[in-house]
C-alpha cells in the first residue's frame, strides 16, 4: 500500500468546512506561501549566521585574553607549567577578571600547593596585570574555606581570615 492511500476516506471529513478539510496532497497554489516561508527561513538563517560570527569573534577575544593571563601566571611564578586552571566566574564573566591557578612545584594538576592569581586590565606586551592572589592546599578546588595567604588588593575578603 502506498502513501496515496491516505486520502482513501474522503467522506469522513465532508461535514467540515472546505478550508478545514484534510487533503491527501497540498494544492499547487500560487507559490506565495512557499515564498513567505522561504523568506522567513532565510531571515532566520541570517540571524543565526550573524549570531554565530559574533560569538566566534567574542570567543576569539576571550581566548586572546586567556592566553595573556596564562603567560602572565608563568612569568609571575617563573614556572612554565601547562596544566593551569582558569576561573572566569568568580568575579563575573562580564568583569573580565580571571583567576589562574597552578602548582607551586612540579607535579600532577592540583597535586601540590597551588598559587592562584587574580589578573585583569588591558593586554600589554601579551601580558595583563596581577592584582592579587592566594594559595590553596594540594588536591582541593578553589573554594573560599581552603584559601590562605591572600595578597594584593583584588584578594581582599577572598580568604576566610
Amino acid at each position, binding site marked *: 500500500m502506498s502513501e496515496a492511500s491516505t486520502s482513501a476516506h474522503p467522506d469522513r471529513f465532508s461535514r467540515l468546512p472546505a478550508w478545514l478539510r484534510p487533503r*491527501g496532497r497540498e494544492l499547487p497554489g500560487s507559490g506565495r506561501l512557499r515564498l513567505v516561508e522561504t523568506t522567513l527561513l532565510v531571515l532566520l538563517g541570517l540571524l543565526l549566521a550573524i549570531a554565530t560570527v559574533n560569538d*566566534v569573534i567574542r570567543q576569539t577575544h576571550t581566548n586572546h585574553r586567556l*592566553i595573556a593571563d596564562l603567560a602572565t601566571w608563568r612569568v609571575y611564578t617563573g614556572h612554565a607549567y601547562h596544566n593551569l586552571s582558569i576561573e572566569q566566574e568568580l568575579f563575573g564573566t562580564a568583569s573580565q577578571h580571571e583567576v589562574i591557578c597552578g602548582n607551586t612545584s612540579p607535579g600532577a594538576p592540583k597535586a601540590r600547593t597551588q598559587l592562584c592569581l587574580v589578573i585583569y586590565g588591558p593586554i600589554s606586551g601579551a601580558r595583563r596585570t596581577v592584582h592579587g592572589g592566594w594559595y590553596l592546599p594540594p588536591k582541593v578546588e578553589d573554594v573560599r574555606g581552603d584559601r590562605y595567604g591572600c595578597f594584593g588588593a583584588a584578594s581582599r575578603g577572598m580568604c576566610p581570615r
Partner: protein
Amino acid sequence: MSVATQSERGVARIRSDWWRPALVSLLALLLVAATAELVLDGAAGRSPLVPKSPPIAGWLAGIGERLGYRVFLIAILSFAGAYAAMLLLTRRPRGAVISKRWAIVLIAALHAIVFAGPILISTDVFSYIAYARMGVEHGINPYLHGPASISHDPVFQYVGHDWRHVATAYGPLYTLLSYPFAPLGVTGALWAMKIVAQLASLGTLALTWRCARRRDLDPVWAILVVGANPLYVIYGVGGAHNDLLMLLLMMAAVSLTLAGRDAAAGAVVVGGALVKATVAALLPFMILSRRRLTPILGALAALALGAVIAYLAFGVHGLDVVSALNRDAAFVSTDSFAAEIAHLFGKPGVFPVDHDLLKAALVLIALQMMWRTWRGYDWVAASGWTLLAISVTSTWLLAWYILWPLPLAVVTRDRRLLVATLAVQALFLAHQTSPLFATVQ
C-alpha cells in the same frame, strides 16, 4: 530540437564532465584521510577532544600525534568542505553518477576507521555504561541516582564531571537494552556500545535507502548525504551515541508508514521514544497524515507495553520521562543558538524568560507544521522541520542533536529542509573555530 542535436549535446556534456568522477574520488579520499587523521591522533591519547577511556585503541597509538584543537578543526573543516563539494558534484540530474557500490565502500570505510579508534569528543557513552552497571552490578535504580552513587565502580572515573550526579534521562527501553553489556566490564561494554552504534548507523542508512527509493528519490545520494556527513561520522558514530539507535527506529517508522503498516509504525515511534523521547515528535504528524485509527492503536499498545515493562524494571520513576526532559531543557550550552543570540544582544546568557520564549516558538512551529500536514504537506518533512526546530530552539545543543532531521531531510521532496539542516550544521561547526584564531594552551 532534433534527436540528433540532443544526442550530440549529451555526448558533449559527458565529455566536458569527465573531471567530475575524478574530483569526487579525490574528495572521498579527503574524507577518509581527515577521518583517519582524527582517529590516529585521537588514539595518541591525552587530548581535550578525546575523553579519558580504557585503552581500546592502544594499538593505533604512536602513529599519530596528540590531537589538539587546531588539527581537529582543520580536519573537520576539510571533511565538511569535501563533503559539501561532493554533494554538489553528485546531485542529480546533472551531477556525476556514482555507483551504489562506490557509496557503500566510502561509507563503510569511514565507519570502519571510526570503529577502530577511540571514543571521540563526548563522555556520554560512559554514562550509558555507568547507568547499566548501576542497575545490573549494584542494584541501584538509574532513574533515581547519578553515577556518583557507584563512585567505587571502575566506570566512574570515565563519566563526565557534569553528569556524575545526574540520573538517566534516556528511555527505559534503552536502559534495558544496555543492561546485558554491564557484566562485560568497562572495556567489553565500551566495545559493545561501539558495535551497537555501528549497527544502528548502518541500519539507519539501509532504511534511508529504502525510503528514498520508495519515494522515487536517488537512494545513493540519500545515503551519501547521511552516511558521509561529518557530524554523523565523527560526532555521532565516533562518540557511539544512542541517538543513532533513535534514528534507526525513526527511519523504521517512516519505512513502515511508506509500506502502509501504520500500526507497526506507530508502535515503532513509541519504541524510539522509549530510547530517546525526542522521536515522539513524529507521532502527531504521522497520525495527521494517515488519518486512521491504526497508528494511534499501535502507539497506544506499544506505550502500554513499554509502561508496564518500565514500571516493573524501574518503578514509577522509569515512567517519568517528562521531568527528565524538563531538567535537561534547563541546561544551557555555549554552542546553543539561544546563547549565541543572547550574546549578540549584549546579554551574558540565557534567562528563564528566554526558555519560555523558545518553548513558545517551538510550539508555534509544531502547530503550524501540524496544520500544514493536515492540509496535505508531507508528514516526513513536517517531522523533520519540527526536529530541526527542537535543536535550534534548545538551549542545550550538542552536535549529535543536529543529526535528528538529516535522514528525514533526504527522503522528502522539500529540499529546503535538507539545505536548512546542513546550514545549521555548518553554523555549528563554524562556531567551534575560535581556537583556530587563538588557541588557549
